[in-house]
């Protein structure tokens, strides 16, 4: 509050000192602001004083006496100081006490971040449809709330910025300002600033030296200037009846403010009652987050993720303990119907508890999508390639960690699509395509996993170019003609980039290999479909949760191993005819007309197998990182969902081992990290 007044009084003072007639206009503007603001605050004397100064200034320049005006301004300054003394940060005042409380500051950070997410979503909606009153209203309210909270904590930079943005948005709400791309840019930038401040405050809470708030004054000036440009410009965009505009301009802005309320109330109405199950899907994108927020707010509790993870761990243990009890031979020997019935009930309840605990870690994938939406907007403007983003399946629930870990790979793929996939406008038009490109993000649930697709309608992958480059780098032999799929998969090779020119957006050849590695880390896989001239689809298949894995339990000697089932293609007992030894490449097996390397699992982990004879063993065809190989094991024991347990610090980085699990019979099995298992093979 005080800061804004000071800045304005100073600027007027500076203009007086300069004594330039040309500077009278901005000075008058500043004084008009003071008058209005003082009116709003109920500081009548200050408002009158500002009016008198302005009046005097508006008189012929020959009457301007620097001294008198400056004195008047000084008087104004003192009056403002006295008036704001109440909310000035005086020493020992209780609001500081609030800021000293990590719990309250934590609440503030959390809530501000929630607002920032919805602000960003709503801004992107406004970008598409500038006349979306709900989105605009919701952004306004978010900044308003953040301002109020920051006021209590005396986070002045945050408060001032939020106040200025709120003022601009209020003008837009009252149709006095058109929502242009520039307005959205500056508001997004303000949201970014707040984001950064939240990170700083959080670091401070964690005990780090948080330092001072980042400079905000330049940004504030930019936000304020949005108002100025709009006032100067004619307002052809406005569909509002002229009297409403003049009404608001002539100081009875209050009428316009209150007038907006009944308008906004019905707009928010669909979100308010008991959420009807049919509504969310049918609603426009902007309405959905609001509905979610309104319904979620009332009944939600915030929980530390660490506590949640511990709960999940314990639930996992409970499920195992339960299954051990159930399978206990002594209990089974009792043949008691009552025991059986109670055990069945126990297992039903534990199942339910487990499902509920898992669901607590789940969150809608939409949040991730909205981050991508922001990127598409920024990049398409930066690269001058207009692009629209279509989202579907935003409500699909997925493990929180996956959502977090997926952000970078997703961003990277979309960046690539825009940079390499989408053609420049001229090329698109020449190809008979629409000027604006289309990028779609889709999420769907499929049996036991989630499928995320990123599709663009660009030029598609250039098979010949990729192949030529791969041959040049010796990744593909001269005689070999790989399938389309194999060629497309080459873009995931480390250091592979076909971009002719390295742009500052992408094309440095880092990235797609990282994308694949990251997706593999999440126990997912990635596939590409591409059609020249039509576009490219990246398909990400991911598990629903990271806490449980659907595994194939296999045995080697006396040991048990768990192969993640998503990587398993098939299983069979090899015949001697399938096997061969290729020089320099070791053992190979011919599977469906393809020669695949054989990895003997017993060699990896130095266990004595039941048999060394391949034809007496079992082959599991597994795929990892785009490569297929046969894993030789003794026997197949069963398929089981297992809870992944960390092996602890000491055994964390053993190649080929992703973790441990307690099997249904109480024995421990190692969960295989196939990439590691295969990697060891190639090194050997």
């Amino acid at each position, binding site marked *: 509050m005080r800061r804004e007044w000071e800045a304005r009084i100073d600027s007027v003072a500076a203009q007086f000192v300069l004594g330039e007639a040309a500077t009278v206009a901005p000075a008058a503007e500043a004084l008009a602001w003071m008058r209005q603001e003082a*009116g709003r605050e*109920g500081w009548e004397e200050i408002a009158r004083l500002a009016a008198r100064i302005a009046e005097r200034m508006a008189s012929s320049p020959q009457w301007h006496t620097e001294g008198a005006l400056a004195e008047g301004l000084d008087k104004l300054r003192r009056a403002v100081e006295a008036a704001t003394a109440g909310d000035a940060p005086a020493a020992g*005042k*209780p609001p500081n006490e609030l800021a000293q409380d990590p*719990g309250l500051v934590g609440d503030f950070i959390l809530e501000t971040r929630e607002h920032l997410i919805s602000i960003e979503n709503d801004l992107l909606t406004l970008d598409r449809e500038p006349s979306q009153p709900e989105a605009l209203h919701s952004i306004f*309210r978010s900044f308003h709330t953040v301002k*109020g909270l920051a006021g209590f904590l005396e986070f002045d930079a945050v408060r001032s910025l939020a106040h200025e943005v709120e003022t601009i948005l209020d003008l837009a709400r009252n149709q006095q300002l058109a929502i242009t791309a520039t307005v959205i840019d500056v508001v997004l930038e303000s949201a970014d600033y707040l984001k950064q401040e939240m990170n700083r405050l959080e670091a401070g809470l964690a005990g780090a030296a948080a330092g001072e708030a980042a400079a905000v004054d330049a940004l504030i000036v930019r936000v304020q200037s949005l108002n100025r440009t709009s006032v100067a410009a004619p307002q052809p965009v406005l569909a509002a009846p002229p009297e409403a505009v003049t009404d608001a301009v002539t100081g009875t802005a*209050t009428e316009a403010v*209150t007038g907006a309320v009944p308008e906004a109330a019905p707009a928010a109405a669909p979100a308010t009652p008991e959420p009807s199950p049919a509504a969310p899907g049918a609603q426009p994108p902007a309405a959905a987050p609001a509905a979610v927020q309104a319904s979620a707010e009332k009944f939600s509790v915030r929980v530390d993720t660490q506590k949640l993870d511990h709960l999940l761990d314990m639930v996992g243990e409970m499920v195992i303990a339960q299954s051990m009890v159930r399978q206990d031979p002594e209990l089974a020997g009792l043949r008691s119907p009552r025991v059986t019935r109670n055990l069945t009930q126990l297992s039903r309840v534990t199942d339910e508890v487990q499902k509920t605990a898992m669901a607590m870690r789940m969150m809608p994938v939409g949040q991730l999508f909205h981050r991508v939406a922001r990127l598409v907007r920024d990049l398409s403007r930066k690269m001058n390639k207009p692009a629209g983003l279509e989202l579907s399946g935003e409500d699909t629930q997925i493990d929180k960690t996956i959502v977090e870990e997926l952000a970078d790979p997703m961003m990277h793929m979309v960046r690539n699509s825009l940079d390499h996939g989408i053609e420049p406008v001229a090329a698109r038009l020449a190809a008979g395509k629409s000027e604006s490109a289309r990028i779609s993000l889709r999420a769907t649930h499929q049996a036991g996993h989630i499928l995320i697709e990123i599709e663009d309608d660009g030029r598609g992958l250039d098979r010949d170019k990729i192949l030529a480059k791969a041959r040049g780098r010796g990744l593909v032999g001269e005689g070999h003609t790989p399938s389309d799929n194999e060629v497309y998969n080459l873009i995931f090779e480390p250091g592979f980039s076909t971009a002719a020119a390295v742009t500052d957006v992408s094309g440095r050849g880092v990235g797609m290999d990282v994308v694949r590695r990251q997706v593999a880390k999440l126990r997912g896989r990635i596939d590409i479909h591409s059609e020249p001239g039509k576009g490219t689809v990246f398909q990400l298949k991911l598990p629903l949760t990271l806490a449980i894995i659907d595994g194939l339990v296999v045995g080697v000697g006396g040991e048990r191993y768990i192969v993640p089932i998503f990587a398993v293609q098939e299983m069979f007992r090899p015949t001697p005819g399938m096997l061969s030894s290729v020089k320099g490449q070791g053992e190979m097996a011919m599977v469906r007309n393809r020669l695949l390397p054989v990895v003997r699992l017993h060699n990896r982990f130095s266990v004595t197998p039941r048999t060394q004879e391949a034809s007496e063993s079992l082959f599991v065809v597994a795929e990892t990182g785009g490569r297929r190989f046969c894993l030789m094991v003794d026997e197949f024991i069963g398929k089981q969902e297992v809870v992944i347990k960390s092996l602890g610090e000491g055994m964390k980085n053993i190649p080929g081992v992703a973790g441990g699990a307690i099997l249904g019979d109480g024995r421990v099995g190692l969960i295989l990290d196939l990439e590691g298992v295969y990697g060891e093979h190639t090194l050997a």
Partner: protein
Amino acid sequence: MAYDVLIVDDSPAMRSFIGRVLGLTGMEIGERLEAGHGREALEILGRSWVDVILTDINMPVMNGEEFLAHVAARGDLKAVPVVVVSTDSTGTRVERMMSLGAKGYVKKPFSPESLREELERVLEVSHG
């Protein structure tokens, strides 16, 4: 006597803040009830005893004005003073809240002293 207070604000963090400032007033506060909007507040008022209400104006579902109108319409709540707590409302907005039956107004952010002063005024607490 300890006063049971109902805080009506759509921001959970703001409710905590107000609760904290209440604690700093030195007044004896009994039950501290919270509602995210007017409708929820009305539900609480139906089942819990409340001595004083602190309400925001801008809220989803049911805003402060509608809430006040409902409170005023209910015969049982005539003796429960409502204090408007708002960030920066225009004079007319506050006047309207007053004409709807609000007894007091504090502007956010506020100090424990100013909150206490206003609460004592609307609760007609005698000094001494």
